[in-house]
Structures are given as structure tokens and as C-alpha cells.
């Protein structure tokens, strides 16, 4: 940049603005590239979530534990694909740049965390930890592609409750679905309580808590409907499920 302190003619103003243009264009181009990558991550993550839903509904015959492990295994390849996208974004996010472009990367990152935590739940029946998410975003030497913010971690998890609601409702009238729904119900109830403590610090989370509350009520209502219906009969629930399956297949 020129060393003059004060510009006093159009001839001196224009070159300075030309430099601004270069800076802004550079910034906007990088931003666009990152937004595009983030969008790709979002799309892939959505597909993983879809795939997970499909596996667990299709393989309803298998034992519960197996399905979870099976689903997580089949998703692993897709996750590796997404992680390589993050690796590709790394050079654009070095140093102070990450803090600058974080909000542009967030949408994809959060959708990824949603998918990853969904797979994790199906396999382990537990909530993926902050460290585990950060680890999934590291190269082979264990160096992070970029730091994980608390906000992205929490907002990704908050969306997880919506997917768990879909999962619970879709499986509830299948064999063993009652137990799944009941597990999901208490899991989501705990998530909601855990997040509640953090809402004062994250505005977005506060908004998403309403959605989580709605999802929880939907799961509760579904669990209730099944409980009410089975309580009319003396047989154990599993056997009732088998009787129904028999009618539908005949």
C-alpha cells in the first residue's frame, strides 16, 4: 500500500480503492468456495441421515444391536467422504481465517455433526462427545483441520433430536419398536435437559429448544398410543407384534 497518509485527488483515491477491490474480491471468492463446500457437506450429510433411516427400517428383522452396528458400518464410507471435504477446506481456514469464515462453514458442519451423532447413537446408544467430534475432524497425525466451536457442536446435536423423533415414530409399530421409542424418549428428554442449562449462552440453541420440545412431545405421544393399545391385551408386546405381522403378510 502507498505510504501517503492522506489522499487528496481522484488519481490517488482510485488506486487505493482498486486495492480494496482486490481484497474484497479475494475474500468473497474464498467465502463462496467455502459456502459451496459447506453445501456439499450438507448434501452428503443429509444423504447419510437418509441412508441410516432406510437401513434401520429395512432391516427391522435383525436384532436391535446388530442393526445399529450394521448401519454405522455402512455409513462409515460416506463419513470418510465428508471428512475428506473438510480436509480440502483446511488451507482456506488457517490461522485467523477460521474465525472469519466459521459462520459460512457452520451449516455443513452442523449437518455433519447431526449425521455423525445419529450414527453414533444407533451404534452406542449414547451421545457423541465434543472430543469425539473434534477427533473425527483430524488428519492421520491427529491434527485438527480446524477448531470445533461449542456452538456448532451443540446445534448439530440439537438437530439430532428431530431425526431421533422420525426414527422412533417410524419404528414404533414394528417389532421391538416400543423399546426403541422408549429408549429414544428418555435419551431425548435428557438431551433437552442438558441443553437447557446452556441456552443462556447460545441464542440459536434457545430457538432450537422449542423444536426439541416438540419432537419430544411427538415421541411421547407415539409411545403413549402404543402403550394404550397394547394394554387392552394380556399377551406380551412382542407376541402382539408377531400377530400383527402375520395379518399384514397374509
Amino acid at each position, binding site marked *: 500500500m502507498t505510504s501517503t497518509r492522506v489522499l487528496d485527488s481522484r488519481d490517488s483515491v482510485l488506486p487505493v480503492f482498486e486495492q480494496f477491490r482486490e481484497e474484497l474480491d479475494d475474500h468473497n471468492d474464498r467465502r463462496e468456495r467455502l459456502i459451496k463446500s459447506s453445501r456439499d457437506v450438507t448434501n452428503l450429510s443429509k444423504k447419510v441421515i437418509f441412508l441410516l433411516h432406510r437401513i434401520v427400517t429395512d432391516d427391522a428383522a435383525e436384532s436391535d444391536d446388530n442393526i445399529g452396528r450394521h448401519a454405522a458400518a455402512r455409513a462409515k464410507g460416506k463419513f470418510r467422504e465428508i471428512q475428506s471435504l473438510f480436509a480440502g477446506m483446511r488451507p482456506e481456514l488457517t490461522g485467523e481465517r477460521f474465525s472469519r469464515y466459521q459462520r459460512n462453514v457452520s451449516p455443513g458442519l452442523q449437518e455433519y455433526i447431526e449425521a455423525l451423532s445419529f450414527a453414533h447413537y444407533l451404534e452406542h446408544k449414547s451421545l457423541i462427545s465434543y472430543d469425539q467430534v473434534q477427533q473425527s475432524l483430524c488428519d492421520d497425525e491427529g491434527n485438527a483441520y480446524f477448531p470445533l466451536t461449542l456452538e456448532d457442536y451443540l446445534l448439530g446435536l440439537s438437530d439430532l433430536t428431530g431425526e431421533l423423533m422420525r426414527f422412533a415414530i417410524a419404528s414404533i409399530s414394528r417389532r421391538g419398536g416400543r423399546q426403541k421409542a422408549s429408549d429414544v424418549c428418555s435419551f431425548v428428554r435428557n438431551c433437552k435437559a442438558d441443553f437447557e442449562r446452556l441456552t443462556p449462552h447460545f441464542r440459536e440453541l434457545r430457538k432450537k429448544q422449542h423444536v426439541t420440545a416438540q419432537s419430544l412431545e411427538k415421541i411421547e405421544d407415539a409411545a403413549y398410543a402404543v402403550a394404550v393399545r397394547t394394554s387392552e391385551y394380556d399377551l406380551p408386546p412382542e407376541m402382539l407384534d408377531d400377530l400383527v405381522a402375520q395379518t*399384514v403378510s397374509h
Partner: protein
Amino acid sequence: MDQQNVEKINSILDAELEIREKIKEQVTEFDKKTRTLTGILNRIHSTRSEQMPALLESARPVLESCRETTAALADIIPADQFWKWKEMWQNSLRNAVFAALLVEYLHSGGLLTLPAVAETLGIKSEWQGRLALPAEDYLHGVISVVNELSRLAVNAVTLGDFEQPIKISLFVKDLFAGFSMLNLKNDTLRRRYDSLKYDIKKIEEVVYDVSLRKLAPSSKEPEKKDSE
């Protein structure tokens, strides 16, 4: 602005106004027909299976009369202007698609394809650019059918038909699996698709009730006085 320029532009603007008026008229007609169809099809919920064919038969002529409307519309719309005007009849068209699909399901148990629906409503492929049946409108019709069938599953049982819910259950699950393979954007269609799970849940509940009432011993109904 010279006189000629003004006249030229005015004739364009006037032509648009006239087209809009004409389309409006046809849409009013179209609406009447789909309202009649909805009225007839609303009766499926209190119609026993043996009388269903007669009911469907009464819907057919109305459905076919939609062809006049689509022909009239295709006549009005200038070449290439389909996308300019389509929002005007979109709702009516989706209602007609719904009726065509529902009539066919109740008749044959199958799903009419997009080209078949277009044919039923008299929409010709050579009208391309003036009138067509977009995928989006077809899918909206399909979802409306699922909404209606979850209600029918309930009412069929009330009328003593315990087979219908099971047929509906199989049909709807198949549709749902198909939908889940589409790459839908985050729009109305996506939202309506997402809500389908409640219809499926309702249908499954009916199937559950019906299956168990036939096969399982109930403990809590000591007064049960029927002897199925």
C-alpha cells in the same frame, strides 16, 4: 414516446389482461368441477365396498369433463407462456390429480403414473409450453391421496370392512418408500412428505387394532358380548 410505441406496449399489456381474465373464468369452472369431485369422493367414507364401484362410476364423468377445461386453458395460453400463468390453476389441477389417483386406487388398487394422470385429465404432450402436468403437482396429488386413505382406513373399519386398512397399509408403505428416494428440495412438497409419517402411523394403528381383535385375547373387555 411516440404514438406507435405507446400503442404497441398497450396492446401487449391489454392482451395480458385479457388472458388473465379468460384463465380466471376457466379456473372458476375448473374449481366447480373439482369441488363436485371432492363432494362425491367425500362419500367414500360412508360407502360400503359393494357400493364403491357405483360411487366411482358417478365420479368418472366429472373427471372426464375436466378435459374440456384443460383444452380451454391450452387454447388460451400463448405458446411458451405455461410458466407465466401456471400458479393460477395450480390448486385446481392438484385437486383434479388427487381425484384421478383416488378413483384409480379404489378401482384397481394401483397408482396411476404421471403420464396416465395427464391422459385422464386430457393434457396432451403436444401442448408442451402451453399446458402440462409438472412432476411437482403430480406429487402433491399423491400426498393428498395418502392423507385421504388414512381417514378411509378408520371409516372402513366402522363400516365393517377389515380388509381395506390392510390393503391401504401396503399401498401407502410402497408410496412412502418411493418418495424417500426422491431428491426433494426444502419446500412445501418436502414438508408435506415429512408429515406423511403420521398418516402411516394412523394406518398402522388401525391395522394393529383389526389384527389383534381377530387373533388376540383381550383381558380388559369383560363385557365383550360379541362372538366373532
